[in-house]
């Protein structure tokens, strides 16, 4: 055998062994490998989300595109629901990877984690099929919504049985992780992560109450939606970011933990009472205009602190981790979360401003950059750091990382443009529809801003190319290890 053939054979056996969790030397605990299917599913659903985003982006300008097969309201529902489900898959994968490592022991039950995965995936897929196959009212009827009406509210459109399924999946997940934490080492990262995940499950329970009073209905709805994305999800995000930063920078835990505590305190102080910024002019008492404005005006602070935190620890890093892509994602999360959630949220959070911008494209611009910058990016940070490990290497090859970084920039820059075009559309919409002496109707305004919707759609296509490149990066081999 020639030496090159031997090297090839050795490389082949190494790579075969690397994919086997039993012999994977990169994983501290074998059971961490259960995160892999969660991340694969998350990326798959992410693709679906973007496809439906492109469909409805086109429907903004070509109203009858794909009608009656996929009406706008269905495309929108699938776009937003897939977002939430893939992020949940990402959080769960992150939890299954992070908690054993922080707790310094194997996962309580890897088998349960895999069963939970399949239950969640099948339930999620069936729900999406249900949305697409039958009219929403029919779906409500055949899933017995009459018995316990929970359907029909934005983001929480899932049939009641799916919601019950989500609760069961969450309970199994939390049981598995909590048992792991209880028996193992307790760190501030794992505590914050668990607090966030328990909060996520508990606040979801508000979705089971659907009062007839429309104001009360909005209260309960926001207690899920707001307390998730501007509350407990931020804890999950902080914990995930801190975990990856500890690993890739080698910075003392003590420093990172202090940051984490301050960020969490700020998140909760500003975020919980900040819920009031959703209570403007929906029938809630007027004092919420002051309370909501004052407290939500502070919501950018924890995001800004997260950015400072990320750059600080990366600048003071004690080691050069070969996974440069993961570091890029971590820093990108800090910046984009601050811009999308912090700055674009602040733009329309004060009551006198919101009086004009309520429910316009300004909201959509904020929604896009905040979800991408905070939650999509933190999940991709986690995937970027953990996937090479689960595949038996400390980092991907240089070639693969270069493609991954290209995908980072394409998606991120495209998202910046989507946000800017929607912001422009929103400002014009407010001006024409709500501020002029002769205000235009909603639909007449929409026609006037169609140009920006076309530009947004174009940016969406670039985003999609970035996403495809991201997937391609997983299949690029090259040298097993990038040079440090």
């Amino acid at each position, binding site marked *: 055998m020639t030496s090159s053939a031997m090297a090839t054979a050795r490389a082949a056996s190494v790579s075969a062994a690397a994919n086997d969790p039993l012999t994977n030397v990169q994983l501290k605990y074998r059971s961490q490998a259960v995160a892999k299917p969660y991340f694969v599913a998350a990326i798959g659903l992410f693709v679906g989300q973007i496809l439906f985003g492109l469909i409805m982006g086109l429907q903004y300008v070509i109203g009858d595109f794909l009608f009656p097969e996929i009406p706008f309201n269905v495309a929108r529902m699938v776009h937003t629901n897939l977002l939430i489900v893939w992020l949940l898959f990402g959080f769960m994968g992150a939890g299954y990877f992070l908690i054993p490592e922080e707790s310094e022991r194997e996962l309580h039950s890897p088998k349960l984690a895999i069963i939970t995965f399949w239950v969640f995936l099948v339930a999620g897929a069936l729900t999406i099929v249900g949305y697409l196959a039958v009219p929403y009212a029919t779906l409500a009827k055949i899933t017995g919504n009459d018995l316990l009406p929970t359907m029909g509210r934005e983001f929480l459109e899932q049939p009641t049985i799916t919601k019950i399924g989500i609760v069961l999946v969450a309970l199994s997940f939390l049981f598995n992780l909590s048992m792991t934490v209880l028996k193992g080492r307790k760190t501030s990262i794992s505590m914050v992560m668990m607090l966030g995940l328990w909060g996520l499950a508990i606040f979801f329970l508000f979705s089971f109450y659907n009062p007839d009073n429309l104001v009360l209905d909005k209260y309960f709805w926001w207690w899920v939606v707001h307390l998730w994305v501007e509350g407990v999800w931020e804890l999950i995000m902080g914990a995930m970011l801190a975990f990856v930063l500890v690993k890739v920078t080698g910075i003392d835990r003590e420093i990172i933990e202090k940051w984490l505590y*301050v960020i969490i305190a*700020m998140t909760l*102080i500003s975020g919980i009472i900040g819920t009031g910024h959703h209570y403007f002019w929906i029938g809630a*008492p*007027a004092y919420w205009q002051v309370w909501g*404005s*004052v407290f939500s005006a*502070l919501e950018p*602070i924890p995001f800004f*602190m997260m950015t400072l935190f990320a750059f600080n620890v990366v600048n003071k890093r004690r080691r050069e981790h070969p996974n440069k892509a993961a570091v890029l994602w971590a820093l990108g999360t800090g910046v984009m979360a601050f811009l999308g959630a912090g700055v674009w949220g602040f733009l329309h959070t004060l009551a006198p401003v919101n009086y004009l911008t309520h429910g316009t494209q300004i909201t959509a611009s904020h929604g896009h950059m905040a979800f991408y910058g905070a939650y999509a990016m933190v999940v991709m940070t986690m995937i970027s750091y953990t996937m090479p490990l689960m595949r038996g290497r400390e980092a991907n090859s240089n070639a693969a990382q270069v493609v991954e970084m290209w995908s980072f920039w394409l998606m991120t820059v495209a998202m910046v443009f989507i946000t800017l075009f929607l912001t422009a559309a929103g400002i014009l919409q407010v001006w024409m529809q709500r501020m002029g002496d002769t205000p235009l109707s909603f639909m007449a305004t929409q026609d006037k801003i169609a140009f920006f919707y076309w530009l947004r759609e174009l940016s969406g296509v670039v985003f999609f190319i970035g996403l495809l490149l991201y997937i391609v990066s997983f299949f690029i081999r090259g040298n097993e290890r990038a040079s440090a």
Partner: protein
Amino acid sequence: MNTAAPGLAAPPRVPGDLAMWFFILAELAVFGIFFAVYGVARQRDAALFAAGQAQLLLWPALLNTLLLIAGSATVAAAVRAFAANLVATGRRYLLATLLLGGGFVLLKGWEFATKFAAGITLSSNDFWMFYLSLTFFHFLHVILGLVIVAAVFVHARRGAYDAANHDGVETAAAYWHMVDLVWVVLFALVYVAR
């Protein structure tokens, strides 16, 4: 007290835990914005605010101001006592802070009770909305301050602090001073300035 030799100044340091200072800054930002919004609202409807302010009693608020300032003095004395290794004295000063703060809570609670009994709510008018929001939000901070000082007091009874290590006392004192500072501004804005 600087014990370093002249010319060999110790590196600059904030008393207590740095994280607490971040927290204090954030708290001051919330109150700062709240005060600014109050100022704007007051200017836009001066008559309404003057009428509301005329119904506030000055003496309980003044007494409360004195209670909080005295609490700040005793908690500062506690820090100095621990720094001088006089731990028993330090504990007594912490207890005094708790009693003074407790006095504030009782007096303020009585004031709230009279306002609620008079049928005043957050929705009565803009003045009462701000009055209740600002004073109740501050009231919650006094309670949190008392919880922090009480936790330090419990630690102190177990002998956790001495001259070499009294970071916890400094941290609690810093928070208490913040609560005091915010009240002094609030007292001037809501009760005195007419």
